């Protein structure tokens, strides 16, 4: 029996006693259910047999297939932030700091967060809708009946793929974003490629890059896990598929900001 179903069936009668209890009850049941889902993930991820082929397939689907969208977004973000920052820096006579400023903001914050949000929209909703649709059409039951552990095959592989692919995508988005910024710098003036990148790398420190990459693992994990959770426990019916996809994006995006806030706090402890 799925732990979440057990929790719901035990508590539902009690929480229906009054509205206030119902609202808080549902919230805490959801939190407990997600915690139980997360624990099950860690239990299953370590237990053989390992689904390497499915992991590779999912990595290809969530990583490679997301790259064009992430690259376009990264380029535009780099270009736009450069164009927008120029007038302010010009007021202070600090246009020469433009590459360094854009690079630091792109690599420390904008690149990872924007990549994660795009990833949540594309991959998180996709996973949620796919698993919900599989549940509605009894494909998950069919897997279970045929002797396959659907949690391991569907959930573990997708969460791992999202966790491993998002950092790679974030690095690529940063790189493409810097190219966008180079174009932005050259729209009003001329800066050579070598001078631009020497400015960028002089400004960047290991302490800028490392925490930014580390937090993308957590972003990827949260997006994959929430997408799977919403899809795996979707209500039956076509309405359930839409709701699963929608709530996966909303909840995953919110989690990205919460994780980012925590990561910034932790990073600032070491930097100060």
């Amino acid at each position, binding site marked *: *029996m799925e732990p979440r179903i057990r929790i719901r*069936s035990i508590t*539902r*009668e009690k929480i229906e006693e009054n509205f206030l209890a119902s609202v808080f009850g549902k919230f805490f049941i959801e939190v407990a259910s997600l915690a139980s889902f997360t624990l099950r993930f860690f239990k299953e991820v370590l237990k053989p047999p390992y689904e390497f082929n499915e992991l590779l397939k999912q990595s290809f689907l969530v990583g490679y297939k997301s790259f064009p969208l992430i690259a376009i977004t990264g380029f535009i973000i780099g270009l736009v932030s450069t164009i927008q920052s120029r007038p302010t820096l010009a007021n202070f006579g600090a246009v020469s700091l433009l590459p360094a400023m854009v690079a630091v903001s792109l690599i420390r914050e904008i690149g990872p967060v924007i990549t994660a949000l795009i990833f949540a929209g594309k991959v998180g909703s996709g996973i949620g809708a*796919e698993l919900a*649709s599989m549940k509605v*059409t*009894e*494909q998950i*039951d*069919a897997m*279970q*009946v*045929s*002797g*396959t*552990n659907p949690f391991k095959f569907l959930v573990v592989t997708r969460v791992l793929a999202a966790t491993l692919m998002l950092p790679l995508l974030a690095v690529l988005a940063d790189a493409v974003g810097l190219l966008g910024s180079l174009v932005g710098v050259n729209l009003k003036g001329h800066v050579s490629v070598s001078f631009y990148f020497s400015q960028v790398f002089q400004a960047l420190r290991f302490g800028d890059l490392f925490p930014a990459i580390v937090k993308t693992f957590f972003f990827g994990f949260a997006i994959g896990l929430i997408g799977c959770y919403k899809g795996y426990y979707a209500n039956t019916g076509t309405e359930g598929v839409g709701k699963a996809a929608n709530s996966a994006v909303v909840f995953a995006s919110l989690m990205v900001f919460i994780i980012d806030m925590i990561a910034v706090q932790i990073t600032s402890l070491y930097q100060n």
Partner: protein
Amino acid sequence: MTEKAAPDNIEQAPVQNGTVVVKMVHLRKSFENNHVLRDINLVLNKGENLVILGKSGTGKSVLIKCIVGLVDCDYGSLSIFGEDISELSEKELMETRKKIGFLFQSGALYDSMSVRENLQFPLRRQLHSIPKDKMNSLIKEALENVGLAKAIDKTPLELSGGMRKRLGLARTLILKPEIMLYDEPTTGLDPITSKEISKLILEVQQTYNTSSIIITHDMECARLTADRVVVIKDGMCDAEGTFDELKNSTDAWIRSYFE
């Protein structure tokens, strides 16, 4: 499972005629306040086709989902090949499931895979080191058995309702299960295709000597396939007999199914 106990009333235990493969005694299942199965006592004998009839919402699908462990029963015992499934570990349950085929009402085909991949999936999962040519010959044989050899490279979305049912059957049969569970195998199909599916069910029984539970509202399917029929009413087995016995029952309610 909230409470589970051995049956205390042996007199109500189901009748056994041959080698019993599935046995349910005092089985109960509720979903919150909805008591779906109230007291089910049933056996499935080796090699027989058991048809279960009953109104919609009487828990027929829940009953067969209990057999494969997709739904846990609340009370009573359910044994498969003499083993109580509530006492099996997850690994043992997985092994038991390999002996059971389940044809879902919707077919439950993997939409992201082709027909060939749908059949490869259970083979790869359960016969890990199967050579490629052996796998291909098994797939070819399974598709030929259900008349779908030409559809091997299509996707499930390109198939008609009848073809999807037949593909679901081929995917289930490719592992040669000892027990087959059919959840409304002819629902949504025209009479000719329904008859084809019913004939396939009979062929499966004769070819592989499977024991089957068939849930249906299609009386023609029941007539063609049933060795024994059980009618479920209010979560309990209300009547049991051959198709003709129940058709000529003195109980007007039971007769109404056959009119």
